[in-house]
């Protein structure tokens, strides 16, 4: 109970902290819109023939360009939450000097990441609701009712991304150029899971990497159920793959984080900036 209370307190602190930077809050909604979604929509629409995106239908089995892009934005947002809000923020706290006092408390180091995950997911949910409201109001975004069947996939993907966040936190606590590392890997991860385009368009040598990532299956399941796109694999098989890859990623991430914690305690670098 103490650990859970601590996790909730961390989430509350993050939510409070972020909410006091109003520009950042607005940015979390509008930046994905004007940096990613709108340009992609306009780019995709430039291939439309009499209002029909025939090319997209040929590629994945649906003409619903807005649905394809907005759902891709959901997974991109979740990935970004894991990379930046859960993992990189720990490094930012280390550099600001506020990580050290949290390590002086009896709260476990794992709970500190978990607390950040809760706070990050709050803002993720907040921004996605706002983005989807704009999508429905301005771009006629509509989904099939079957999209609800994909919600368990999203939930499992969240667990997987927390595992990824532990792994990333282990790295960013130890390396020098953490910001650059997170920036690059965040983008690569988003590309690899098929958020921007189907993974079948990736070079053959890179596709196996996509199949190792839990979020790839979540992405595909959400689009299948929401838009009726052609699936990568049989949906039941995709669920199994999602669960298996999550079950592998999470303990690896936790193990790496504990190793990093031990290393920092040996080197004494918790307060370096």
């Amino acid at each position, binding site marked *: 109970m*103490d650990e859970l*209370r*601590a996790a*909730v*307190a*961390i989430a*509350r*602190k993050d939510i*409070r*902290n972020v909410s*006091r*930077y109003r520009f950042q809050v607005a940015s979390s909604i509008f930046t994905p819109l004007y940096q990613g979604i709108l340009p992609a929509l306009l780019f995709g629409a430039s291939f439309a023939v009499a209002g029909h995106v025939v090319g997209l239908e040929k590629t994945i089995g649906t003409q619903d360009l807005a649905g394809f892009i907005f759902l891709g934005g959901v997974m991109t947002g979740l990935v970004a939450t894991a990379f930046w809000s859960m993992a990189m923020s720990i490094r930012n706290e280390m550099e*600001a*000097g*506020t990580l*050290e*006092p*949290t*390590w*002086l*408390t*009896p*709260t*476990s180091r794992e709970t500190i990441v978990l607390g950040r995950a809760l706070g990050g997911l709050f803002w993720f949910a907040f921004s996605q609701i706002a983005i989807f409201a704009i999508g429905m109001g301005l771009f006629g975004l509509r989904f099939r009712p079957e999209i609800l069947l994909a919600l368990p996939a999203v939930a499992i993907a969240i667990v997987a991304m927390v595992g990824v966040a532990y792994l990333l936190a282990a790295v960013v606590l130890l390396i020098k150029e953490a910001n650059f590392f997170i920036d690059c890997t965040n983008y690569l991860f988003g590309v690899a899971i098929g958020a921007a385009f189907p993974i079948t368009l990736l070079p053959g040598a890179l596709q196996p990497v996509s199949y190792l990532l839990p979020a790839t299956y979540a992405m595909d399941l959400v689009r299948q159920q929401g838009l009726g796109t052609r699936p990568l694999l049989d949906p039941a098989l995709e669920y199994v793959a999602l669960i298996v890859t999550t079950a592998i990623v999470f303990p690896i991430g936790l193990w790496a984080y504990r190793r990093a914690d*031990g290393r920092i*305690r*040996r*080197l*004494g670098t*918790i*307060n370096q900036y």
Partner: protein
Amino acid sequence: MTTGPAVEVTGLTKVFEKGRRTVWQRLRREPDKRSKFVAVNGIDLRVERGEIFGVLGPNGAGKTTTLRMLATLLEPTSGEVRVLGIDVRKDPRQIRANLGAMLSGERSLYWKLTARENLEYFAALYHVPPKETTARIDAALVAVKLTDRADDYVERYSTGMRQRLALARALLPDPPLVILDEPTVGLDPQSARDLRDRVRELKRQGRTVLLTTHYMEEADQLCDRIAIIDHGEIVALDTPAALKRRIRAEEVVSLEIGMTGEDAPMLARLANSAVIARSERHNGTLAVTAHCASARDFVPAAFDAARSEGATIQHVEVVPVSLEDVFISLTGRALRE
């Protein structure tokens, strides 16, 4: 929790390796050729419950490294460390649950939160029972005199106020032991005096305080006992008064002597009537710090010595013995070098 000492340290050592070993070197099991830096070299320490214990030394002496090992932030290379009777390696979380620590002061606060919000957050991390949280926060704010500013953003606080808030946070777990790393560094004299009053209050409450400082006046005024640390080793450990008595001097005389010849004959004559703690030559002036039983006896002898060597005493200053003088006599250099 046992009733033994608050802190007991035996043979505590911390060695850092300089540089990194690449993955390739590790895979090939190449010998570790990195140079080693011994930050703390086999220190023994015992802090009794209810005392204010100071660790005094210059920057880089090993004070902060020692404190971090006690606070479980840094793993010792070797030695035994027991805090409140608990081995730091065996149950660090239990130690942290009973330890209040202020290590990096104002940098360790969230500036976009109010003082109260900062404390609410840390109260949860310290596993303070929810029913007690409000009372503990209020008590901590009263202890550091920040109650009337509790709902202001920390970004609007002065440095002194942030240091006090960091101390308030350290008090949230109602700790029997509080460790403070250079608590008054960067503060103006009034704020520093204020913080020292708060520290004395902690002792009156029955808590043990372990603090580091490089201000010898602070150590002198606050601490029941002091360990002087230099180059990772404890060079002396005793009460301030006993430490000063160690150098067998009551007064310190500083002389500036204008001279053209060699230092050695002059110093030899002065050494007949005092202990020469330190001497420095800058061009034509020899600056000497001497420890003596009585300045009234030593100063005329110094003038005689100067006359004999054809030198001129340009300046004489007599001050009571301080811990700085103790440090100089033990290490051969000043605390601030």
